[in-house]
């Protein structure tokens, strides 16, 4: 898995054909503005096609679950292997790995080593600090814009019932959470199906950034008797936005070239959540949803 070099694992900065560029943008691999030089009247329809094709593929291929018999057999196999003579190497290897993580024997070494480590860390810290000052905030703002552009477009695209039918392969909250937890490497904490909150569906998504992602959507009843649709996108958090845990931040959509959306982001338990609502959904109602999700509402300075 490690043979390929780092350069081969990056998307090319240029030289992509218009078709490859369009597919990469549709997949959330590149920001939408990369399409600007080749954009024409058909670009949005072609993007929509690619995203619909992905939804359809997910729907058609998502079927089989491991049969119970297999589950039992695999558990037995694992137990048998663990009981084999010599398998204590496994235990030792894992224990050694755990010890490395737990005790950091590095620090338990001689004073000279510790001092050398302090020196190295100090130099590295200065370097990292300079790097962050030079490129961190810019990268973060670029990611914020990519994220906001993508989720607002996906939210709007899936307002169409037929697109939603295709994308949302999970029709109950419980099923979606159960099946998406291993994918996300964490249990998503989302709104339950409740009075005034109707789960519309959930499915895999291509949110920009590293790691798998998914899209939950709800129809929320408003006090005036009408309803609005709200999306929650969830992905593994790789600190793309450097957020405080469990605190919502409002994305400055105007700085992202967007209007008509309220977009809030927060991180919790290793996952990055993005809530998207249209301007038909009051800001106060968004805050109510945050309260229901036990997420601290955004302070005025919590804006990205």
């Amino acid at each position, binding site marked *: 898995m490690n043979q390929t070099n780092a350069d081969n694992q990056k998307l090319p900065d240029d030289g992509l054909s218009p078709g490859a560029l369009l597919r990469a943008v549709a997949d959330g691999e590149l920001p939408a503005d990369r399409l600007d030089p080749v954009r024409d009247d058909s670009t949005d329809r072609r993007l929509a096609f690619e995203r619909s094709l992905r939804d359809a593929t997910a729907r058609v291929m998502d079927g089989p679950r491991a049969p119970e018999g297999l589950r039992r057999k695999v558990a037995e196999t694992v137990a048998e292997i663990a009981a084999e003579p010599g398998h204590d190497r496994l235990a030792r290897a894992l224990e050694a790995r755990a010890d490395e993580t737990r005790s950091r024997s590095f620090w338990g070494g001689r004073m000279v080593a510790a001092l050398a480590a302090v020196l190295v860390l100090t130099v590295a810290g200065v370097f990292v600090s300079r790097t962050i000052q030079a490129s961190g905030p810019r990268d973060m703002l670029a990611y914020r814009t990519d994220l906001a552009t993508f989720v607002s477009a996906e939210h709007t695209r899936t307002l*169409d019932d037929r697109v939603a039918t295709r994308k949302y392969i999970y029709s109950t909250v419980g099923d979606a959470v159960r099946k998406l937890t291993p994918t996300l490497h964490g249990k998503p904490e989302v709104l339950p199906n409740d009075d005034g909150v109707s789960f519309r569906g959930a499915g895999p998504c291509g949110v920009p950034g590293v790691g798998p992602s998914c899209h939950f959507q709800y129809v929320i009843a408003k006090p005036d008797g009408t309803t609005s649709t709200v999306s929650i996108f969830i992905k593994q958090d790789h600190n793309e936005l450097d957020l405080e845990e469990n605190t919502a931040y409002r994305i400055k959509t105007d700085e992202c070239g967007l209007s008509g959306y309220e977009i809030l982001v927060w991180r919790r338990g290793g996952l990055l959540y993005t809530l998207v609502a249209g301007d038909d959904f009051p800001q106060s109602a968004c805050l109510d949803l945050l309260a229901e999700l036990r997420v601290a509402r955004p302070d005025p300075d919590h804006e990205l």
Partner: protein
Amino acid sequence: MERNEFEKSALEHLDAVYRMAFHLARNSELAEDLVQEVYARAFRPNAIERFEDNSPDGGGGMRAWLFAICHNVFFSKIKREARQPTAVENFFEESSTERQPDEPPPQWDGERLDFEQIDSTLKDAIEELKPEYREILLMWGVEGLKYREIAAILDVPIGTVMSRLHRARKIIADRLLADDEAVANLGLRRDEA
């Protein structure tokens, strides 16, 4: 990572590994055999000692590791069993420097979609794909993996992932376009495909 935690984490991904095995083998019995072999290999002491959690960058971790084993076991079997493994060999000769395919995707008219028709046609098209294309479609569409993560699992350059994914998508789109009924139902425009 403690041993129990390791086992628990590996077993949590059983459905995903089975799904991948099923789409590679296209047969539930073979898929079950494949999954058992994946787990048997994953829990061998020497294999576990090599386990590296790639999640800091790739986000894959255990699942990516199991997918990589599944991929290697399946394609090693194909290579062993085939007298002339031309398709697989050709496949692995792809390089990251190959020219990116330039065909834009067709346009999609969402006004007249017949989802049952689409599912049926797509299912047939996907089942007829080569396993390496089904595998990449699964990781891209269902598992939601990024190009970089897929590249790490398959141990190929990212350009190869893009090319392979493009071909798989194009075959599917062509299949839809070749089907008059699907064209009519989907409102696809042949001249723009």
